[in-house]
């Protein structure tokens, strides 16, 4: 298997979408393009039960082939890095299962192998997870209710880049906020960069208004990925295509 680039969208929100296309549908679209959609739903400190508004969180991640998690803001840092890493392993295991199907035929997956063989394959998956390149578009919900959560989100993202930059593989992050300024659905905060340390200075301010255009935000993220690989294929036309996993 060639060394490839994993692509993820990381959606951080605290409520449900209310504008534009169905986010689950756009997430499914992302999945078709080989992009996993992870969703983190932040709970308010006084929320003891799973709020119905956050049911969408699970649906989007399911449709996007990613991982979802509801979490109180105190645990956000650990959760963000865990979800990102688990989603990487999940995607890589998906590739491995596809290969296994080719070799062993029909419906064979890792779970059908005996524990010893599974151990050997897991080592390969881990190697890939450590060395592959990773690109993440972070989508941050900046609607009014996120007010007291944004500082924690910022910390969690800096922490995420600390975790991922300890890997051997390269990382690139890009951050968008939704809704954007002046009635735009989405707005770029931070272009592709390997580190998020500088993010503190330019972190998104709250946008007023009650709209949460989650679907359009995911769509924009997909576009960013495709635009990026197009540009790259122009620049590196003779080199090996990194996007192909």
């Amino acid at each position, binding site marked *: 298997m060639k060394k490839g680039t994993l692509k993820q969208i990381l959606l951080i929100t605290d409520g449900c979408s209310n504008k534009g296309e169905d986010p689950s549908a756009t997430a499914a679209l992302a999945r078709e393009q080989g992009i996993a959609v992870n969703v983190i739903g932040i*709970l308010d400190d006084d929320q003891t039960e*799973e709020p119905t508004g956050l049911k969408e*969180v*699970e649906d989007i*991640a*399911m449709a996007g082939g990613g*991982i*979802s*998690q*509801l*979490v*109180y803001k105190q*645990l956000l*840092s*650990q*959760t963000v890095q*865990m979800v990102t890493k688990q989603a990487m*392993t999940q995607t890589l*295991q998906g590739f491995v299962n596809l290969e296994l199907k080719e070799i062993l035929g029909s419906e064979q997956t*890792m*779970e059908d192998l*005996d*524990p*010893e063989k*599974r*151990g050997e394959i*897991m*080592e390969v*998956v*881990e190697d890939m997870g*450590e060395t592959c390149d990773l690109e993440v578009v972070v989508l941050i919900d900046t609607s009014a209710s996120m007010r007291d959560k944004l500082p924690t989100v910022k910390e969690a993202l800096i*922490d995420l880049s*600390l*975790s*991922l*930059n*300890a*890997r*051997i593989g390269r990382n690139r992050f890009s951050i968008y906020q939704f809704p954007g300024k002046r009635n735009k659905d989405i707005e770029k905060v931070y272009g592709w960069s390997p580190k998020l340390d500088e993010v503190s200075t330019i972190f998104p301010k709250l946008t007023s208004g009650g709209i949460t255009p989650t679907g359009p935000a995911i769509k924009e993220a997909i576009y960013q990925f495709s635009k990026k690989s197009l540009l790259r294929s122009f620049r590196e036309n003779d080199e090996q295509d990194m996007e192909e996993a």
Partner: protein
Amino acid sequence: MMNKTWKRPNPYFAPGMQVKGKWHKNIYTVKRKLGSGAIGTVYLCESAGDYAALKVSDKGSSITTEVNVLKAIDQAQGNKLGPYLLDVDDWVAQTGEQFSFYVMEYINGEPLSDFVRQHGHVWLGVFMLQLLDDLENLHQLGWVFGDLKMDNLLVSKSPTRVRWVDVGGTTRIGRAIKEYTEFYDRGYWELGSRRAEPSYDLFSFAMIFLSVYHPNHFVKRGNSRQFLFRKLDAIKPLQPYNYSLKKAILGKYQSSAEMKQDISKAIFQAKRKTQNHKEKVPIAIESVGLMSLAIIYYLTSIYLF
């Protein structure tokens, strides 16, 4: 706490239940639950008259990863680094769902902080030396423990020895730390990276001894270096080791062996210092005895183990 919306829960094994492996057909009778963490639940069980610890999880890949680590560190001849691996298998529930589990040596012991509180600070030095020996061996094998924390340490009896019980965070040197706990993680304190290096473990090591006296931990505030140093300075029983612990916090040790030298030196120096002031400070006499006791305990633990 976290709500897991996307996953099936870990299976619950009631006491008395028999768990039979799909592949190796071994049967384990569940005695009781020992604990549960981010990855899976551990049960005390009995098989062929022997006690063992069984870890089961809904995350099959994590179980497989842990088994790989246990296998790798089992190769350390003569060193009990972590529990022995006894069996790896799958359990199929009545619903047809499959869960991975592994069975390891059951380490019967009490938490390190409880032990120190009951049996005295004299044991601090002993446990430091024991832990540093184990870490040195592990690092020599090319691994870093990663999630080194109070919860992952138990003190077993006869001989009294500190043991590791969970290798879930154990990572090959040079890679990204697999699993960590914020309080013990130098990344959280902005005092280093999350790359697996011996110095990563030594930072956690220092935090373990700090947490003996801060069982509820504390969160970061201001300049971490100054903040942690102040916390260390405030704990009297740690005074003899302060120099080394601070050095570990700053990541100044390249190896556990290097730190062990400093700690042993500290133990002997504390002994000499107290000898000089014998007549002035009666308590000092006691600590001379305690320090020599510490060294004797440590030496016997090496030979008996």
